[in-house]
């Protein structure tokens, strides 16, 4: 048989041939249609939705509302019957007689089937650290980005969410353990990818988080950041069921004076208190007064460039707005009085969100299908931000040859439109959210002609600040749009090629296409960009990747020995291209008119090629269980990765884990309160290649109009092409290695309580980071090299208690805690630290050996200089004066210099935690999801703009009005002052990076509070429905925090990193530049319907 196969194999993929060959495996057929019923041992009631599966196959059925099932079987088949909360049971089919199967109740999840790396295992047989997410609980959080489901649902997993619609979350497993990409590997139905945001939560069957080496090392070079394995639902044999899941809700922005800003009169007062002559000009009526009009104009009403403020209504006759030539503008705005303009609520408003999924699923013993359609429309509370998504999923399976050969596919197609719903546009000083505190409340939303108000009005100083109207910017977003088409999925085939052997091949991947356009309006209302040409751009991005995975599994049980061995080969590849074009000078900005060709000034379009990458891998896994007590598992993987230079491309990652189900031992058999107790330990290595660019091994040259062209001919506009060294290559670089030790136990106690505890140590060596080189090597980008070591240690603890008070009332409480302690062990550059986390002054973050990643670094404030004698007696700095901050002289040299900067805080939490509460009373259900973070500090950089007078004009905080030092005659007259005196000349003594900005970032959020009701199925039956569940829900009902900003939960800023941008995205975080808040209340009603 194999001989003929080998002959044919020359032209076919060998492994696929193996599978085809098994088509000829002889099959016995003796079909009969079995019917039966599944009941619970406790109440003898029908178990609805129990799975009845023929052992060793995917063929099966699900019990209906009466507990009944029908299945085509053969005599001798063994049925595996399972349902959550009951022990799995196996029943041999002896005849076609009606079969009643009684399931014993269990409080344990030990018999749960868990999807792990390339295989599935019973939970009791697992020796690695794997957290399974309770998908039912997780799905209660309405979200358009599925990573958000994970928040607080699995120990060891930290998720930081943004409020932007459709924005990906920041996810890391067991702490931040490198300076760049800490995103775990997602394996979605066998497809390896970088995020799961587009997977429809309704489609998800299970989520497992592989945390230690025992579990994750089989993913080798991709597994170092941990692995999240997601499987989607499959159809089940039996009648076709239709399910509808939907909700509608509305989200409300935070109310009130969110930045705690002064009103215009108070700002007018303050200008005079500060003695700020430039700004006093804005208030000719004196302290506390507001002028009526502000204006800015060209030659229309006076000489060039004159402007000012006035209360003379005669000015109105000069108003002129010339869209085609802003040089002719004479713009007049009427100032806002009273509370002034509430910039925040000019762009934040209540926003609706809805999501609908219709799923049809069913099948026979030979095939199953699941077809789901999903529609999402989430409007952001920030105006003109939204995510609209249309998705179709089809998962199908087919079996033949008496179920010895199985094949099928899982996949979805998504089309989505998104506007402003990604993190990059906020969390930076140029973001529109930052604009809501950078704009003075005196400035009106609209000027007297109905055009946007702004900072344009006064020259000669800038008494209105240099911000841009967030209202204008955000409304202008309406003509921007981004369209995505995204396809993800796999096709697979598997065959039982011989007794004990199963071969499987799976080909999967993603296709990604993004097209977006944006229009840049002439920002006539803004201080720094008045005039210029309008712009419009179109951008196209396409990329794809594939995984081709082939495995052979050997599985045999003899006597007390249970052996499972898996061997596999895998290859992955990625490629992509991008095209950008932006032109300027459009006659009209009507989005129906604007195309790249319609511009009057044409810039060359640019395109880039993503560096293609490929990975080749061989891997193996062996699991051995003796007597259901001693579990030994080992994995090994050998990966080759194209980005590294030949000779450094291949790496081997081994792991081993041991477990002892001590509760099976005779000496514990009699202990009734221990249902199960398993001790586990593992050690192994995984790797990470996420922090290196594709051309790192090579020295490369580029050409760029700005950087390397030159007007050698001496004309006004002609330039000649030149080249420059863009990248210095280093061929000796290789992967990051994560050595992970894990010790833990899983326990089921008192029939009701499941506890899992893990202690781990994750030592990462050879961290990939750009080498810091002296300038003498030139201006090319330095190569990324293996530069440092980081170590994280911590505990993951989760516990669930299931209780049932009586027949009508049951409840469960789940809680989990994640701790990690990050420590930088080594940086092999010439200094043992680097600074990052940009600000207007110094860097905020120092990543230094002996300290955690992301630690805040700056001056420690020590009060306010009260008088001149303190200024002269205490260690000082240039510009020190009464009313300025005193800083701590940490190096004791009696001067305050940059050497006195010290450690100010740690953005890493002591722990994060999640709590799930569920209760059922008769047909009512209640649930609550809490999520919290404790012990982390946030750096509230918003205060740079609002709390100091010396920084740019803009919105200023009431604290500056009420708590700033008042200096009279060189003496502070209010010794209790906590802020430096309002003065326009004290940068060092006020706004420099200091402990003043540090706040506690601890919080507890009530993510979800839900009440639901399930209708009586017997009533529903009459109208043809199987199940109806309705619910009302509030999300983010409360946030308990001391943090004074919008939301203490802060995604990293990609824009204010300084220097290397996203390459350092994990090197600085917990800094608030004005983030899209994720704690806005939302009220939702929803329904789940099955028929």
């Amino acid at each position, binding site marked *: 048989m194999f001989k003929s196969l080998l002959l044919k194999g020359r032209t076919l993929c060998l492994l696929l041939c193996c599978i085809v060959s098994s088509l000829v495996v002889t099959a016995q057929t003796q079909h009969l249609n079995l019917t039966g019923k599944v009941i619970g041992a406790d109440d003898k009631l029908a178990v609805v939705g129990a799975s009845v599966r023929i052992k060793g196959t995917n063929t099966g059925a699900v019990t209906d509302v009466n507990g009944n099932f029908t299945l085509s079987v053969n005599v001798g088949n063994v049925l595996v019957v399972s349902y959550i909360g009951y022990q799995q049971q196996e029943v041999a089919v002896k005849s076609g007689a009606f079969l009643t199967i009684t399931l014993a109740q269990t409080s344990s999840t030990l018999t749960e089937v868990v999807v792990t790396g390339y295989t599935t295992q019973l939970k009791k047989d697992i020796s690695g650290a794997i957290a399974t997410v309770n998908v039912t609980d997780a799905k209660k959080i309405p979200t358009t980005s599925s990573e958000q489901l994970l928040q607080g649902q699995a120990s060891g997993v930290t998720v930081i969410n943004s409020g932007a619609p459709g924005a990906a979350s920041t996810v890391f497993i067991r702490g931040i353990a490198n300076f760049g990409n800490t995103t775990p590997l997602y394996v979605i139905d066998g497809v390896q990818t970088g995020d799961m945001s587009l997977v429809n939560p309704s489609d998800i069957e299970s989520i497992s988080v592989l945390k230690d080496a025992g579990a994750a090392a089989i993913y080798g070079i991709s597994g170092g950041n941990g692995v999240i394995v997601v499987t989607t639902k499959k159809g089940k044999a039996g009648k076709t069921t239709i399910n509808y899941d939907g909700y509608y809700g509305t989200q409300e922005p935070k109310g009130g004076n969110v930045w705690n800003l002064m009103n215009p009169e108070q700002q007018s007062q303050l200008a005079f208190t500060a003695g700020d002559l430039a700004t006093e000009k804005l208030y000719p009526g004196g302290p506390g007064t507001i002028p009526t009009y502000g204006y800015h104009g060209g030659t229309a009403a006076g000489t060039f460039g004159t402007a000012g403020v006035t209360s003379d209504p005669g000015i109105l006759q000069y108003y002129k707005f010339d869209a085609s030539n802003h040089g002719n503008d004479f713009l007049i705005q009427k100032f806002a009085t009273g509370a002034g303009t509430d910039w925040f609520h000019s762009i934040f408003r209540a926003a609706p969100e809805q999501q609908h999924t219709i799923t049809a699923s069913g099948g026979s013993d030979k095939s199953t299908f699941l077809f789901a359609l999903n529609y999402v429309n989430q409007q952001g509370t920030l105006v003109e931000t939204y995510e609209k998504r249309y998705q179709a999923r089809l998962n199908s399976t087919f079996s033949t040859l008496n179920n010895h050969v199985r094949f099928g596919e899982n996949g979805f197609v998504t089309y989505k439109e998104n506007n402003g719903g990604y993190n990059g546009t906020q969390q930076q000083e140029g973001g529109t959210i930052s604009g809501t505190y950078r704009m003075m409340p005196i400035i009106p939303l609209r000027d007297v002609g109905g055009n946007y108000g702004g900072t344009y009005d006064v020259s*000669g100083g800038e008494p209105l600040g240099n911000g841009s109207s967030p209202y204008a910017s955000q409304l202008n977003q309406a003509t921007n749009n981004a369209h995505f088409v995204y396809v993800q999925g796999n096709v697979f085939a598997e065959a039982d090629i011989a007794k004990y052997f199963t071969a499987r091949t799976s080909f999967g991947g993603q296709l990604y296409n993004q097209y977006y356009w944006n229009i840049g309006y002439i920002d006539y209302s803004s201080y720094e960009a008045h005039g210029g040409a309008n712009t419009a751009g179109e951008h196209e991005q396409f990329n794809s990747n594939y995984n081709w995975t082939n495995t052979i599994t050997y599985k045999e049980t003899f006597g007390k020995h249970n052996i499972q061995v898996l061997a596999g080969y895998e290859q992955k590849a990625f490629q992509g291209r991008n095209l950008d074009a932006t032109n300027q000078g459009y006659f009209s900005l009507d989005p129906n008119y604007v195309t790249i060709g319609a511009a009057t000034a044409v810039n060359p379009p640019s395109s880039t090629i993503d560096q293609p990458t490929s990975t080749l891998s061989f891997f193996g896994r062996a699991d051995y269980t003796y007597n259901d007590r001693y579990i030994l598992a080992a994995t090994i993987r050998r990966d*080759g990765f194209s980005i590294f230079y030949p000779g450094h491309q291949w790496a081997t990652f081994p792991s081993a884990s041991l477990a002892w189900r001590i509760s099976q031992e005779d000496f514990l058999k009699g202990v009734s309160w221990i249902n199960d107790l398993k001790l586990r330990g593992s050690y192994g290595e995984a790797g990470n290649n996420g922090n290196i660019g594709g051309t790192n091994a090579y020295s490369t040259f580029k050409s760029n*109009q700005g950087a390397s062209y030159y007007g050698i001919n*001496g004309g006004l506009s002609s330039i000649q092409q030149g080249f420059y060294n863009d990248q210095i290559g280093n061929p000796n670089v290789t992967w990051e290695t994560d050595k992970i030790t894990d010790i833990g136990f899983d326990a089921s106690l008192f029939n009701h309580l499941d506890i899992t505890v893990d202690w781990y140590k994750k030592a990462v060596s050879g961290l990939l980071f750009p080498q810091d080189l002296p*300038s003498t090597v030139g201006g090319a980008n330095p*190569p990324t090299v293996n530069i440092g070591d980081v170590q994280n240690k911590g505990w993951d603890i989760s516990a669930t208690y299931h209780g049932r008070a009586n027949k009508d009332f049951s409840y469960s409480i789940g809680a989990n805690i994640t701790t990690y302690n990050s420590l930088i062990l080594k940086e092999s550059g010439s200094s043992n630290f680097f600074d990052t986390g940009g600000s207007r002054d110094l860097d905020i973050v120092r990543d230094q050996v002996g300290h955690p990643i992301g630690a805040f670094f700056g001056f420690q404030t020590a009060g306010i200089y009260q008088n001149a004698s303190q200024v002269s007696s205490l260690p000082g700095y240039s510009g020190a004066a009464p009313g300025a901050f005193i800083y701590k002289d940490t190096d004791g040299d009696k001067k305050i210099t940059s050497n006195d900067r010290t450690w100010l805080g740690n953005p890493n939490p002591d722990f994060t935690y999640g709590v799930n509460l569920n209760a059922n009373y008769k047909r009512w259900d209640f649930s609550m999801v809490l999520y919290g973070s404790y012990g982390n500090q946030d750096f509230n950089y918003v205060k740079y703009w609002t709390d100091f007078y010396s920084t740019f004009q803009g919105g200023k905080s009431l604290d500056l009005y009420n708590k700033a030092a008042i200096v009279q005659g060189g003496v502070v007259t209010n010794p209790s002052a906590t802020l430096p005196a309002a003065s326009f000349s004290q940068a060092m003594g006020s706004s420099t990076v200091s402990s003043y900005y540090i706040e506690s970032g601890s919080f507890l959020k009530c993510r979800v509070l839900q009440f639901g009701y399930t209708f009586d199925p017997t009533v529903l039956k009459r109208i043809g429905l199987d199940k109806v569940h309705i619910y009302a829900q509030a999300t983010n009902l409360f946030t308990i925090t001391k943090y004074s900003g919008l939301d203490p939960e802060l995604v990293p800023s990609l824009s204010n990193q300084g220097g290397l941008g996203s390459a350092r995205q994990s090197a600085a975080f917990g800094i608030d530049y004005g983030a899209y808040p994720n704690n806005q209340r939302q009220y939702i009603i929803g329904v789940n319907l099955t028929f």
Partner: protein
Amino acid sequence: MKKSYSKFIALGSLVVLTLTYSCKKLLNKEPVGVLQSATLASKAGVDGLLIGAYAMLDGYTNTGGTEWESSIDNWVYGGIASDDAYKGSNTTDQPTAAPLENHSVDPANEFLSEKWAACYNGIQRANDAIREIPLVKDGSLSTAYGAEVVAEAKFLRSVYHFELAKMWRSVPYVDETVTYAAGNFNVGNPGPIWDKIEADLKAAMTVLPKTQPNVGRANYYAAEALLAKCYMYDHQYTTAKPLLDDLINNGETSNGLKYALAAHYEDNFNAATKNGPESVFAVQMTVGDGSGGQNDNAGAVLNFPAGTYTGCCGFYQPSLSLANAFKVDANGLPMFQASTITPGGFVYNDTNLPNDHGYALNKAGAYTLGGVAGGTPFTPPSDALDSRIDWTLGRYGIPYLDWALCGGEQWSRGDITPYNPIKNAFYHSQQSSTTDNFGGWAASQGTADNYNLIRFADVILWRAECEVEANDLPAAQADVNMIRARAAIPAGFVHTFVDNSDPSKGFTNTPAANYKVGLYGVAGAPSFATLGQAAARQAVYIERQLEFGMEGHRFFDLQRYDALYGGPAGSGYMAGILNAHIKTNVAFLGTNPVLQGHTFTAGKNELWPIPLHQIDLEGGKLKQNPGYN
């Protein structure tokens, strides 16, 4: 079972073999979208690398630094750090520039590291061109042409090394042997590198032609002029003199124009008249070239009056001291004698040139559309002034090119000074052809105005210095008078508008102010011989101050005059002048938040501190300059 097992092994081995064979191919991914040395190994590739080395002259880099920090015009290091100008804008705008102005700079200051990095970036780009030449094997590059490329590359690396040397004096000298791959990049700074720069320039002069196919390329005379400049900084006046004579007698531009002073002083600061006979070596600036404003004079992008014809940013405001220096005596000569009221200062600062500073502020609430405070109209002073003042700084009530009467203090930002930068500004009538939007936010703030690294006036005044040191005072006077004679041409003055409310109607023939430019030794004015060597030296120095105001040279001129680095003007000369400048500001302006309470420390602040991070990175090989830690 057993049989099929062995088949499995056979099958498995075949699978592994097949896959292993394909591995090599699959993992072999060459860099895409980029070039490598091998692809550039042709004449065209070498040409492109050399252009890339020229392209760093404008300070715009590929590494994301900000061009105003690395600007070739040195407005920060040569300008605001001297008595030419203030940082400007709000006190807290670009706060790291303030310590550069007031001499309290920390070695960690980011401005310094950007300037340092941009210079070495340029040096290594020049070296890349030199390194590529031996790789060209396709016959497209002749030996002679290769030598010419090497000569131009050596000239360029001299320009960058020179920038480094005047900023920091002892700096690493980096030639084509220094590479990352060789691991020899921790070069160290054992001492001044004048000899090495001079050697590169001498080598370049043996090959460089006298004219070039492109006016932007360095020719023989550009190299000779830079070599002369090195000797001036190295105080080798007698060695410099013959070079300067040759340049004055025989020099010509790359496009074959005989060296001469441009007809009008302002021609040097106008994109429409660039690359004229005065342009010895200029950094070429272009606009509208598809680069988004990155090849224009982006180093000066912040240096425009605020909130007027450009929206931003109000930096590089001319100082009171500079304006006062343009006051002239009855003979139309500058006042340069030591002051009686500010010891160490200058007579020109004893009284302040009347200006509009303070007028607007005292009359809050009485603004009119026209400008200054109502009730107290400010009239520009009628004091006799050197004509170059109004081409060097924007003054209240004087035509600001063809834009309008300058708004003075109203146009400035931060309310420190009444003066605005003008040399880098552009004519309204030329806005569309000579400006570009820089970086998407700075509308019309990139100009096609070249920066004159060396102009012929430099050459003439350097020779005057050499002549003073040789005590050949009549020759020195003749050279200085050559410069002054041009400034005295009435056609080169700023003239009043025909119609103040519509500048597009043009200019009258009436001078906009009381300009008076006299010559030494003419019509009763004292001659150099009468003044004596010491005063003649000062006459040359102040002539450079007036001729090159706001061109980024002043700090470095003061540095080389000072005896500390071998100059003839006495020890502490630079500190004396700059401390007097600070005192003057306090006297006339009241509180200046940036300068207040600061002094220039002799023996330290003449040089900038070597960027701290570079010292850290070079692991002990790089030594800090005296006085800094």
